């Protein structure tokens, strides 16, 4: 991990050449959720290929652009398309953008993803606020000699997701008549979807939804002392005893359909948090 610091500085330097705001939040948009960037008043944008040390986004429906601008009145830096372990990348490479967001000044990470719902109280199209996670990827982005400039060797994980922001999101959902749950996200490496036996197992160990991302980014955000809020869009229900074959086109359609609701929640949480922060200062 000792080479990360310089990589972060180099990526920042490039972004700083065309954008000089301090972002309040970094936003990562998951599968099918890219359209949220149309709500951003874009001040600068970069293809991932332009930014030193950024990976290529190869996954379906992940564009591969870093957008800097204003969401509402709040400066943000957003990833349209993310990197996944199943693309063959190492977790410390995948999470470099989070460290760049932090280095640009972001104190909040907002992550979103498309996931499979295992809690039978959920329905496809619902949104779940991530309350906690289980890392079942068999890897960790913090492995290597720790760079104390970036964070502690043994980060605490007792509360990786900010409970105040979860509360904000749920209250916004109630007033906007959006179905929102909270629950536990389990991350697996993928890329195949889970077997019925795996869904049963994941449910039994306490997970409500399953996906192939988010946890590495959140671990790095916690390591970087950022606050985090996570939105999972349940794109299909994975009930082992009534399992339908997954249809990627359908999953993306459900995600696209949920995107306006996600935008309402995410921008609402962002606005409240920015306001609270301004009052504190």
């Amino acid at each position: 991990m000792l080479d990360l610091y310089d990589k972060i500085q180099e990526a920042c330097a490039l972004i700083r050449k065309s954008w000089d705001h301090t972002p309040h939040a970094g936003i990562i948009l998951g599968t099918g959720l890219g359209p949220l960037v149309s709500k951003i008043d874009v001040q600068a944008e970069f293809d991932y290929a332009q930014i030193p040390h950024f990976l290529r986004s190869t996954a379906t429906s992940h564009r591969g652009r870093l957008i800097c601008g204003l969401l509402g009145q709040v400066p943000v830096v957003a990833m349209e398309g993310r990197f996944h372990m199943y693309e063959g990348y190492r977790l410390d490479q995948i999470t470099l953008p989070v460290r760049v967001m932090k280095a640009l000044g972001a104190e909040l990470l907002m992550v979103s993803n498309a996931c499979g719902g295992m809690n039978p109280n959920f329905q496809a199209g619902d949104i779940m606020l991530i309350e906690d996670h289980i890392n079942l990827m068999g890897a960790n982005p913090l492995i290597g000699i720790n760079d104390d400039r970036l964070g502690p060797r043994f980060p605490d994980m007792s509360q990786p997701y900010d409970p105040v922001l979860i509360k904000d999101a749920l209250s916004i959902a109630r007033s906007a008549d959006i179905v929102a749950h909270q629950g536990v996200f389990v991350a697996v490496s993928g890329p195949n979807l889970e077997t019925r036996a795996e869904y049963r197992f994941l449910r039994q160990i306490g997970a409500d939804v399953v996906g192939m991302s988010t946890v590495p980014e959140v671990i790095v955000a916690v390591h970087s002392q950022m606050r985090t809020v996570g939105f999972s869009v349940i794109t299909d229900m994975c009930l082992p005893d009534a399992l339908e074959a997954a249809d990627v086109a359908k999953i993306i359609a459900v995600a696209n359909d949920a995107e306006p609701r996600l935008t309402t929640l995410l921008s609402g949480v962002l606005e409240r948090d920015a306001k609270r922060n301004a009052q504190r200062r």
Partner: protein
Amino acid sequence: MSSNATQNATHNAAERLERHPRESSTISHRLPVRPDIAPEPCAATQWIQNRHRSFRPRIGIVLGSGLGDLAEAIEQPTKIAYRDIPGFPEPKVAGHSGQLVLGLLEGAQVAVLQGRCHLYEGWSLEESLRPLRTVLELGIELLILSNASGGITPRFHSGQVVAIDSHINWLFQSTKSPNPHDSSGSILMRHDRTYDARWLAKAQETAEELGFALPCATYLATLGPNYETRAEYRAFGRLGADIVGMSTVPESILAMQLGIPVLAFSVVTNVANPDIPTATEHNDVLAWSSMARSRLEPLVSKIASKYFSTTNRNH
């Protein structure tokens, strides 16, 4: 020393057995390792044996987080920094200093590894195990492992010492046998005897003599380095784990593959209550470890004196 160092070491143990037949009870059920397929000892083993020809350790000890002070109790110590031993990696975490200590514990010759190389530091499994493999190849009859762990079961309290009698490998990696001829499927790959039941009983008896109970625990090893989330604690509990940590499992497996019985002790540094989010600080872990030291150190010393001391054979 020739490349037959391991065979020689095994030989020496056998010789001692013949000379002191009553000792046989202490090492009676080493798993069968066929000498004709014994692996080549690593370079570090030969390096140490060439420099300390008269030294024949009977116990190997691995000291975990905050338990490093046991090394201070070693008499006539020879301390060798990991960086001075060919092929040894060097640990880089607070609380771990990284040296091999050869000497006497209660009159028994011991080889002590002070400082572990953890997988979260980025070592490969093979690199991280090299110091232990060296100690195992010095011809020890018992391996004593210690670690600090997080408590999952509410039966335990912070600062308690427990004995590991089983484990769950959650490292997503497995230890390849150092034995080139052991292509799994053999008796060496059976994990049910990893933690030695007879040594466990002896340890419990010894703990009782010292005035404390030594409960058994199933240890789950994760990669780390972050501490567990509450959801992960709940998940591991449902899987049957009592305690969770970031070491020990590969070491136990390696010892088993080389046919050496293992006693593994864990200091439960913080019992997690997943329903009340409480932050874990590395400094707290070190503090709980030092509290438990007052039990674990006498326990290990007494095991050495009871079963291995050359001056005391009343066991």
